[in-house]
């Protein structure tokens, strides 16, 4: 029997992206630069997070014409972002045959209480999380891949580190618990018990776990892999730097050889200026943190 859109096929594509870098691109030309640099996939969007942050206003799904242009420009998988809870945007992205939908806090949320029912789709979804409970809620809604949220558009890796540690420490803790403790733990985590049981039993998420939100240098990429990320999303970090093609290659190199400091050092030489960074405390004071959207 031939089947499509099974959960194994959905997580399977994320398995193929492991050890790789998924790069934000806003034009077909950028997509080609990303592919040429060794990106394992691209994320098509209208503005990179740093620009969304600067411009303000409502950030929405990208123009379908732009997504199609990017699909035609490259042969690697193309992902695109839908607003949290915006089922119709996700339907449009599915009809465009994007390879993955990112239900993303980088865009302005459409629903303050509910995420998209991702089981209802054939296209797989990736969702962000700041901690284990959030990751497990997204899995309960049908996400086939989890990424840390970090703080997009800041070029500051501190939040990605915090979120990755929250998730991996949470998993280790869960794996230590006895079966009789899981029900109360699920309540504590505000996550479905079935998903909690699966993670407690396996000692890992049932889907790939990537890092996103704040990677700006090869060293950042290597750090996140050492902390347990299975691959990296890089948003503004590449195309907001002074030499995107070279920085993109260097971040790909550092993601593969993350445990080889000499190679990461060699990749880090002569990259020009990194994107300008932002302090998290200042953003928190202005209530401008994207990571608090859609918990």
């Amino acid at each position: 029997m031939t089947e499509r859109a099974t959960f194994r096929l959905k997580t399977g594509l994320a398995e193929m992206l492991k050890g790789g870098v998924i790069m934000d691109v806003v034009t077909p030309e950028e997509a080609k630069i990303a592919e040429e640099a060794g990106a394992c996939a691209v994320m098509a969007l209208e503005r990179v997070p740093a620009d969304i942050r600067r411009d303000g206003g409502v950030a929405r799904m990208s123009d379908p014409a732009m997504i199609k242009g990017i699909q035609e420009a490259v042969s690697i998988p193309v992902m695109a972002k839908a607003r949290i809870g915006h089922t119709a945007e996700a339907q449009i992205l599915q009809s465009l045959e994007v390879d993955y939908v990112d239900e993303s806090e980088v865009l302005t949320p459409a629903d303050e209480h509910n995420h998209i029912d991702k089981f209802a789709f054939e296209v797989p979804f990736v969702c962000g999380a700041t901690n284990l409970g959030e990751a497990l809620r997204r899995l309960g809604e049908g996400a086939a891949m989890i990424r840390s949220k970090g703080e997009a558009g800041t070029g500051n890796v501190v939040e990605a580190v915090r979120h990755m540690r929250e998730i991996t420490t949470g998993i280790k803790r869960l794996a230590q618990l006895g079966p009789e403790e899981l029900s109360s733990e699920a309540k504590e985590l505000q996550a479905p018990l079935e998903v909690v049981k699966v993670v407690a039993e396996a000692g890992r998420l049932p889907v790939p776990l990537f890092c996103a939100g704040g990677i700006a240098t090869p060293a950042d990429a290597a750090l996140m892999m050492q902390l347990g990320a299975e691959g990296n999303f890089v948003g503004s970090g590449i195309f907001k730097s002074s030499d995107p093609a070279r920085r993109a290659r260097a971040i790909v190199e550092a993601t593969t050889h993350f445990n080889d400091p000499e190679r990461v050092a060699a990749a880090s030489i002569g990259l020009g200026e990194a994107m300008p960074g932002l302090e998290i405390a200042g953003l928190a004071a202005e209530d401008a943190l994207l990571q608090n959207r859609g918990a």
Partner: protein
Amino acid sequence: MAASAAGTPLRVGVLALQGDFEAHAKTLRLLGAEPREVRVPGDLEELDALVIPGGESTTIGKLISSAGLEPALRAHHEAGRPILGTCAGLIVCDADHLGFLDVTAKRNAFGRQLQSFEADLEVGGVGDEPLRAVFIRAPWVERHGPEVEVLASYEGRPVAVREGTVLACAFHPELTDDPRFHAIFMAMTTSARERAGEEVGR
């Protein structure tokens, strides 16, 4: 299971530049082999065989080149040590890339992710029971030379092939719990090690 006459486990490298190399390592362990991650040329020393996993073939190809791995991969192949390529690994081994197989693979031939599928597949060498084959943005074999043995086809397209010491498929045997496709590879590896042993003894 997968041990030589001397009883030491088969050492099977898994190219760990990008892709689902951990899934292959898990299947290899299940068969009693000792998987080793390969990222730089030195990692290819003292291996009995090598797996080139699924992933993005363009990415893996670029990383092979930036890591300077191509000469070591060619030496591995020329020494008669078996190679298994799955999906992207099939593409990397084809005539347009490393040239270990006299085939031309067509990338993303079955379409984008929405066209990804699972199907029961009859595969030569795994017994009568069909194999559950997982195809993800999969290639197929567009052309193959006379020395290439086609082990499986889907809708008339070759999706599993063997030529000499190289075995490849368009699907992902590493994503299921069924190790029979890898078992073919382990048998090839055991034979290759025995051949090498005899040559040394001669």
